[in-house]
């Protein structure tokens, strides 16, 4: 875990409000694992005050790539940074996905959930896994990096709410269809919480070990404030709160308290 000033290598808008940011950060890139995140200062002053967490979208050759949506002031500031400017970041933070090799995997992304799953897909392929990537969005304009995903040698399954591309309906329904005739050794998902809850139910019903990446509002990002908790269940079924920033953001679906 490091705190450093990373230089912006490239900042590319790939949709009306979607950006790819490439940062030169060799110390973080060298140890980053899929599912981990970085915590960035978005501005120079005291407002906005807190850092912003963003998943590591890809990592290699001394660089980190982030994939993010411009949502509010922090990400808007980030989108205005140009090559050569410096961004203050902490990372790599959190626990990533469990990596396996030589298996059959399902990756299920809802909207921005694609951000951490891209890195996972690439490493999973390098480890000799067969990867089916299920990618859902509201409409075709919400689907990004399709070519880059296909270049990884994965099988891509697309779903949109309005049917403007691929299967019409939720991405979890598309995965459910595949689950009928296909066996998966493991499954991974990131996306809106209701989609993750549906994913968890399907994984449990098909007895597929599965992990999700969760989001919570964060202050420190390194476990000091206890602000980012989510409810989990321990082995005896007792509910407790765990930090998303250090205990996660990746959790086993069986441990997550989906009802809140």
């Amino acid at each position, binding site marked *: *875990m*490091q*705190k450093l000033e990373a230089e912006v290598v490239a900042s590319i808008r790939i949709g009306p409000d979607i950006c790819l940011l490439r940062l030169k950060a060799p110390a973080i890139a060298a140890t980053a694992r899929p599912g981990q995140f970085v915590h960035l*200062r978005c501005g120079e002053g*005291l*407002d*906005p*005050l*807190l*850092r912003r967490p963003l998943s590591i979208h890809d990592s290699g050759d001394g660089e980190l790539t982030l994939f993010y949506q411009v949502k509010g002031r922090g990400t808007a500031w980030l989108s205005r940074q140009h090559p050569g400017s410096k961004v*203050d970041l*902490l990372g790599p933070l959190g626990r990533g996905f469990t990596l396996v090799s030589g298996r059959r995997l399902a990756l299920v992304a809802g909207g921005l959930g694609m951000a951490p799953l891209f890195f996972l897909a690439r490493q999973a392929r390098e480890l000799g896994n067969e990867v089916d990537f299920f990618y859902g969005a509201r409409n075709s304009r919400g689907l990004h990096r399709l070519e880059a995903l296909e270049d990884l040698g994965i099988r891509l399954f697309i779903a949109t709410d309005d049917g403007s591309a691929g299967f019409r309906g939720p991405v979890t329904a598309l995965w459910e269809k595949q689950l009928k005739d296909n066996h998966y050794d493991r499954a991974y998902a990131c996306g809106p919480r209701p989609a993750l809850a549906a994913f968890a139910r399907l994984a449990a019903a098909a007895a597929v070990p599965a992990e999700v990446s969760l989001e*919570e*509002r*964060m*202050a*420190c990002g*390194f*476990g*000091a*404030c*206890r*602000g*980012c*908790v*989510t*409810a989990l269940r321990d082995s005896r079924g007792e*509910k*407790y*709160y765990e930090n998303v920033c250090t205990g996660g953001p990746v959790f086993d679906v069986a441990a997550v308290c989906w009802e*809140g």
Partner: protein
Amino acid sequence: MEQAEKRPGVNPKEEDEKLGARGKGLAGTGCAGSGLKSRSTPQEPETGAGVNLEVQLGDLTLPNPVMPASGTFGFGEEYAPFLDLNRLGALVVKTITLEPTPGNPPPRLMETPSGLLNSIGLQNPGLEVFLREKLPYLRRFTPPLIVNIAGRTVEEYGELAARLSAAEGIAALEVNISCPNVREGGIVFGTVPEMAARVTATVKGQTHLPVIVKLTPNVTDITVLARAVEDAGADALSLINTLQGMAIDLETRRPALANIVGGLSGPAIKPVALCAVWRVARAVKIPVIGMGGIVTARDALEFLLAGARAVAVGTAGLVNPRAIIEVIDGIKAYLQEQGLQDVNELVGALRI
């Protein structure tokens, strides 16, 4: 040396061996390891360059006046990757309760203009786990260790004080009677002068350690509370805890925090905190630790001028884990710039 006296029962040799082992483990991270030898050979002496940073809180000696604020520092280990814990004026841990406390449901945080609203609800693993799993780690460092406590009843405060006093390696107790985020205890004890005095007297009766009482700003006149706990025997005061606050999400029309209200901290509260410190420092004889919105050395210096003998950095450390080190270095630089030899010359030196 001061510290050896402050840690009865700790065998320095044995401890140094532990430090050595730990130093190796950290060698690759390029950080915290550097100060591990500071017991015998200080590498970055705070008293160097002709400037004295040592301050006295009653019987408690701090190598410099800057400490972390309880609840924003975890149990120290969270900050170890970013800084050398041996450089701090004191180590201050998250509030400990007798039983494990689960805390409030999420969302617990909301950013506000230059501020942070939180409703953690004193989540902590409880006294037993603290003594068994957190204290041995904290004992390895040289700065005095201050343990913050909260009870649901006056008796619980007393029991916590007694049991912590029996443990090795604790330099002082900070009594939290000011948490706005718990229903039982906390704020009730902090807003009624008679209750604040009873908690203070009970804790004093159960410990030989210096007792610091942490006050809330959510009262009509904080000096009344300050005098009440001074009269009850407090050795020092910490102020301020967070201000009660609220935020609403316009999309959902729901409160931004699951607990509806929370405690506001960060730069947004600095003027309120500074004013409280100034008023209380003039109203009592015991030393005051000032906190609330300190981000830079300049903020800290304002608190010292207003009468604080030491300061704490809270929210700023969550944003910049090295903030506390920058504050210490900045105070030293200011003293040198001003041609001052001793930080104590600044305490209460406000010109009016």
